[in-house]
């Protein structure tokens, strides 16, 4: 097999072209586009978040009956930070069992005075502890401004069960911005109580003669409205319940002798059992009646 040789002129031309391309490509490395640079400085400062509250301590009250509500009070929340915030949480202490039957309702103050009863949509909770996620609050509070909330507490329990008890819960509000920024106002305390059972007033024990037997009359003044009546308890047995101002007569043979102490208990409620209302006694208060010999 023979190998054909490229014509000399063509070969030389090819070599020349290759050499030229090589030189041209070699030369391009030293040619760069001009550049210039500059810079601009800036500062950015983040805001702060804060909230203060007042009026919470005005929620103290005392209840005497079931479903009794305290008068509406104003709570003022002020944005003390530099950023807008949302009133997101209320933190209450756990005050069970009484706290579990005292309902707190919160709603933004209307143009006029607070309604005596919470409007539809008001946020409600009980003093059972924890962080409560508020709803129906003002969407945003600007820095340096305040919002006012109406607050009403209601005792939903049975006065007989909680008579004389009290709680001192604390309440605090938390404002938030975004998902991680939050600030809690200082917690404020107030006292709520359920009225105790009043002693029967002007109790009189009188020894009377019924024929040849002796008896004791026990009288007292009419029971107050919060008390259903009073009963006589003798040796652990409830003998009779009297709503008010009645005379309960024990004959001597029932007393087992003179000088026996009778205890008068107040009745603050009752529970139905087998068709009869069994009085619930509260002790104290009680008062003893010692009849004269």
């Amino acid at each position, binding site marked *: 097999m023979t190998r054909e040789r490229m014509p000399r002129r063509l070969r030389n031309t090819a070599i020349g072209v290759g050499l030229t391309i090589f030189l041209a490509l070699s030369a391009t490395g030293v040619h760069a586009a001009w550049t210039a*640079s500059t810079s601009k400085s*800036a*500062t*950015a400062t*983040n*805001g702060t978040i804060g909230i203060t509250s007042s009026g919470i301590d005005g929620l103290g009250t005392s209840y005497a009956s079931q479903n009794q509500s305290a008068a509406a009070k104003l709570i003022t929340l002020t944005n003390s930070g530099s*950023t807008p915030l949302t009133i997101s949480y209320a933190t209450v202490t756990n005050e069970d069992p009484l706290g579990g039957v005292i309902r707190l309702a919160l709603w933004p103050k209307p143009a006029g005075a607070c309604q005596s009863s919470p409007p539809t949509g008001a946020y409600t909770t009980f003093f059972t502890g924890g962080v409560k996620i508020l709803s129906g609050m003002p969407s945003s509070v600007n820095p340096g401004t305040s919002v006012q909330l109406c607050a009403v507490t209601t005792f939903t329990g049975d006065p007989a069960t909680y008579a004389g008890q009290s709680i001192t819960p604390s309440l605090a509000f938390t404002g938030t911005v975004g998902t991680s920024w939050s600030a809690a106002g200082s917690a404020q305390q107030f006292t709520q109580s359920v009225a105790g059972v009043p002693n029967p007033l002007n109790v009189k024990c009188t020894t009377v003669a019924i024929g040849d037997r002796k008896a004791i009359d026990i009288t007292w003044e009419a029971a107050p409205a919060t008390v259903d009546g009073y009963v006589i308890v003798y040796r652990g047995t409830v003998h009779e319940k009297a709503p008010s101002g009645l005379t309960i007569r024990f004959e001597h043979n029932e007393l087992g002798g003179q000088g026996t102490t009778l205890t008068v208990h107040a009745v603050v409620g009752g529970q139905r059992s087998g068709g009869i209302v069994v009085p619930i006694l509260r002790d104290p208060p009680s008062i003893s009646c010692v009849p004269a010999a």
Partner: protein
Amino acid sequence: MSESTSRKTKSAGAIRTLLITTGTLLGVVVFSLFGVGGSYAYLNSAATGTGAVLQAGTAELTVSTGTLSMANFYPGKVETAGFTVTNNGSVPLALSVSSIAGNFAANGLTAAVRSGACAGTGTPVTSGSLGVVLPAGGTTDMCLTVSMANDAPASAIGAASSLTVSLTGVQQ
């Protein structure tokens, strides 16, 4: 003519052909390189000859003076601040963001730049081309956008940040 003499003559002719071809092509290349003008020249230099001055071009960028100041950032807030960039050189420059440096990210902030006034619209970039070629002697608006994400950490509350936007112009 002897065979030896004939071979020498042919070789000389080949070399001459090669030199002529190479020289011609080199001439064409060199002429082409000068033909594209400013793309290939010595940087920032001047030469003085008898009766003539050859002045090379320059590339220079400056920004408006002063430090931009933005305050009271909180989750969800976006703030913008405008500044200008001037091409003080003699060739047009394509502008780009080289970097945005600083401690702002640790404080829950993001920063980006776009060309144009802040009142306008556009997508800011954190690096890369700004999509604008600034002619020699020209000035353009720039807008720095700083924002805080809704999930910025609580550690960022009250923090102070600094940032430096580095811009580059590349000759066009």
